[in-house]
């Protein structure tokens, strides 16, 4: 027979097993005498059992010697078990000068075999539900993590590849030395142009150079040369740009340059 005490403690009278609800691992097996004592008290739940009745049925009837002191000791041990299993209320009440009774305020149910199975199943389900409840949010939380990581990696890779493709990949290491073309001598100073000079435009370029040089006080100094560039539109009298750089050199190396740049009636942008 299994008793459920205060819905918190299970007690099986056959073998004296007592355990807290939902924690069969904490089962305690009562001694034979203690088991008989608790069974007696539970069978007469809410009724007072005198000391003599208890001593007779638990000890004397089984050929054991007893005393009131021993009874008190066993009662005390039982109380400790109930407290240990979480029942704060006093289960076994002392009735002064009479005996003891199992407290009528503490609910005691007796389980049949079918009820035990039901309760056991319900308890299992409850436990399982709790486990599922505890696991579910975690699972939901982490289930999408691999997808998120994969997407992140994909996005990072795509960004890096796009940026990499945008980096100019032409072979630009060989920046060619600037080619210059002799135009004429301005005094003793050679004038070079950046672009080739066609026969038809060379004279016009010379004239414009001389004109610009005179207007702006650009003289030929000893050991200097000129680099010159003029836009064709400027040559034809329209808005345009002109550039004259006078450089001092020594051993074919520039020492310094004075640059003149005219931006006609046109903005650089």
């Amino acid at each position, binding site marked *: 027979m299994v008793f459920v005490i205060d819905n918190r403690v299970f007690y099986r009278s056959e073998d004296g097993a007592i355990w807290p609800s939902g924690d069969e691992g904490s089962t305690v097996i009562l001694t034979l005498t203690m088991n008989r004592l608790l069974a007696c008290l539970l069978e007469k739940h809410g009724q007072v059992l005198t000391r003599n009745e208890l001593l007779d049925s638990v000890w004397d009837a089984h050929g054991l010697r007893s005393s009131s002191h021993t009874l008190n000791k066993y009662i005390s041990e039982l109380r400790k078990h109930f407290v240990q299993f979480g029942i704060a209320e006093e289960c076994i009440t002392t009735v002064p000068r009479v005996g003891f009774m199992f407290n009528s305020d503490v609910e005691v149910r007796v389980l049949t075999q079918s009820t035990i199975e039901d309760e056991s199943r319900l308890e299992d389900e409850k436990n399982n539900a709790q486990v599922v409840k505890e696991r579910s949010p975690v699972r939901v939380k982490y289930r999408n993590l691999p997808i998120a990581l994969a997407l992140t990696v994909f996005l990072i890779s795509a960004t890096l590849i796009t940026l990499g493709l945008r*980096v*100019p990949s032409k072979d630009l290491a060989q920046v060619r030395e600037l080619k210059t073309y002799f135009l004429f001598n301005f005094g003793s100073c050679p004038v070079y142009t950046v672009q080739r000079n066609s026969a038809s435009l060379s004279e016009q370029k010379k004239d414009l150079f001389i004109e610009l040089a005179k207007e702006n006080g650009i003289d030929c100094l000893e050991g200097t040369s000129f680099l010159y560039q003029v836009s064709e539109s400027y040559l034809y009298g329209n808005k345009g*740009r002109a550039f004259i750089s006078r450089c001092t050199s020594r051993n*074919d190396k520039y020492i310094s340059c004075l640059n003149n740049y005219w931006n006609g009636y046109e903005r650089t942008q």
Partner: protein
Amino acid sequence: MNALNKKTGLIAILLLVVLVLSVWFYVHKRQNQNFLKVNCSTILRYNHQDPDFVATLDLVFRLDENHDGQAVLSGNIHSEKGSKSISRTVMFSYEMNRPGEISIMETRYLKNPRDTADEESFKSSFFYVPDGTVRQLRVEPSNNGWLLGNLQSPFALCVNREG
């Protein structure tokens, strides 16, 4: 369960390989990106119309390996409004587009307190790049100098500085 773990592991390895290859590709492209190393100076007389001004400037022009550049301008601007001093540093990032041609972008301007030039004049110069835009410059080696210019015309022959 084991099959599932194996599949997940394979996908993870694949993703890792893709990521590593992408990083390698990007780093490789960046490292192979060409740069110019320029540190030169020159004097420039800049005649501009509309607005009318003549600027005489000392120009220091630098391009570094890390694709940053500087143009230090100091001098005077003469216009109808009078003579103003200009003293500012233009810092920028650059990329090489093709041999002898760079794009400058992300331009920042550091103006010294003695710089009194009006912005209108400065905005007409070569190194003004409005926010979010890119400007092309030609930078071609010539002997121990660099011929600097816009796409239409050179504007300065800049001589390498010693050291």
